[in-house]
């Protein structure tokens, strides 16, 4: 027990939280890459696409959680609602980052690749995307932290995760569970953040040692 919360409960809730915040992060990333690429690539499409996806971020999460079943035809208590909502927020945040990431690829490098005989798609995969990783990772970090925070609101609609400790603690006038929940949320966010940093570092070995030997 910690702060009136059983360790096993805390563990379960943390796993649930991770699942609800993390899976959408991955799906969102996969969706944002083509969207961001389009935004960076097609000049006239860029601003409306980024503004449009950004707009989705202004929809209050509580409303999205509750209204999605009407749109999707899912069960009202289904995790899918939360997952889809979080995917939407992830895409809203990440599309701009991905576009910025692609824009950050030095033009000479892109031109050199083209001049070497890469086709467009092949070049995106072999050159543009790897080079955009640092910027995309930065966006992903913000999205991860924000997801962890937003998911806890789903406690208000009975989808259990760490946020449940807030409602539970509050109802019972007990500060313990709420604080445990907050700490667990922050810890989870920090861990996710560190994981992203780690993966990004592993994926970009070239940016590690700059000093000529």
């Amino acid at each position, binding site marked *: 027990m910690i702060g009136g919360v059983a360790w096993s409960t805390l563990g379960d809730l943390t796993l649930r939280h991770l699942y609800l915040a993390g899976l959408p992060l991955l799906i969102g990333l996969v969706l944002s890459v083509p969207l961001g690429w389009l935004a960076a690539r097609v000049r006239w499409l860029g601003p409306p696409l980024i503004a449009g996806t950004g707009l989705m971020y202004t*929809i209050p999460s509580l409303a999205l959680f509750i209204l999605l079943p009407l749109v999707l035809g899912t069960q009202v208590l289904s995790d899918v609602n939360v997952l889809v909502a979080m995917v939407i927020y992830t895409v809203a945040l990440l599309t701009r980052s991905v576009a910025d990431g692609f824009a950050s690829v030095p033009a000479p490098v892109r031109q050199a690749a083209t001049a070497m005989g890469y086709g467009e798609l092949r070049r995106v995969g072999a050159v543009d995307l790897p080079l955009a990783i640092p910027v995309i990772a930065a966006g992903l970090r913000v999205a991860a932290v924000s997801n962890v925070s937003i998911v806890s609101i789903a406690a208000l609609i009975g989808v259990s995760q760490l946020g449940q400790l807030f409602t539970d603690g*509050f109802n019972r006038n007990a500060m313990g569970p709420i604080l445990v929940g907050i700490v667990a949320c922050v810890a989870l966010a920090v861990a996710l953040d560190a994981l992203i940093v780690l993966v990004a570092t592993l994926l970009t070995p070239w940016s590690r040692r700059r000093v000529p030997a």
Partner: protein
Amino acid sequence: MNQTVLMTWEWLTDPANWQGRGGILAQSLEHLRLSFVALLVAALIAVPTGLWVGHTGRLRWAAVNLTGAVRAIPSLGVLFVAVLLLLPRLRGELAFELPALIVLVALAVPPILSGTYAGVDATDPAARDAARGVGMTGGQVLRQVEIPGALPLIMSGLRSAMLQIIGTATIAAIVGLGGLGRFLIDGQASRQYDQMAGGAIAVAALALLVDQALALLQRVVVSPGLSSAARVR
């Protein structure tokens, strides 16, 4: 689903829902009031801190990591902690409003802070060097070069903070405050989807409106020399 859209449209276009004490207009104003107070308080905390960090380059590491951690704090949890702590200690409206403000300020500080120090950072090093070189004191460099140079990023920090505030201010309704969140919370409790969807749309629209207003403000306060449009010769 089609029906929900229709009902939402009807709810939104029904003049009765716009007027009166609990109407969309009144709640929008209340929402704005709370949001602007939060933004102001957050700016008062974050802008000076960010300027200091950016100008001196000190505690940069702390600022970066702290803002990251603060971003991770869940709003709902903070709200409940604040309510539990403050409700018994405060009287009247403030007992509800202060917890909500704490949440919103905590939410708004990181983007404003990082916008501010990144802005100061982004000041052309050559311009900063030249400023010292022509004999400006530290304070003059800050006021005459770094702050004007940082304004675009400070403004975008404020804008992104405001977007988040307006979206999150809806949870103030949980503790009984007004604002557009009322439509969400009350709509949820009574399963009135038209009201909920209408409320959500109103919040998004309000966020956009305020963002546009801030964009306008940005255009006024930021020197035209700094906007990329000026680059066209």
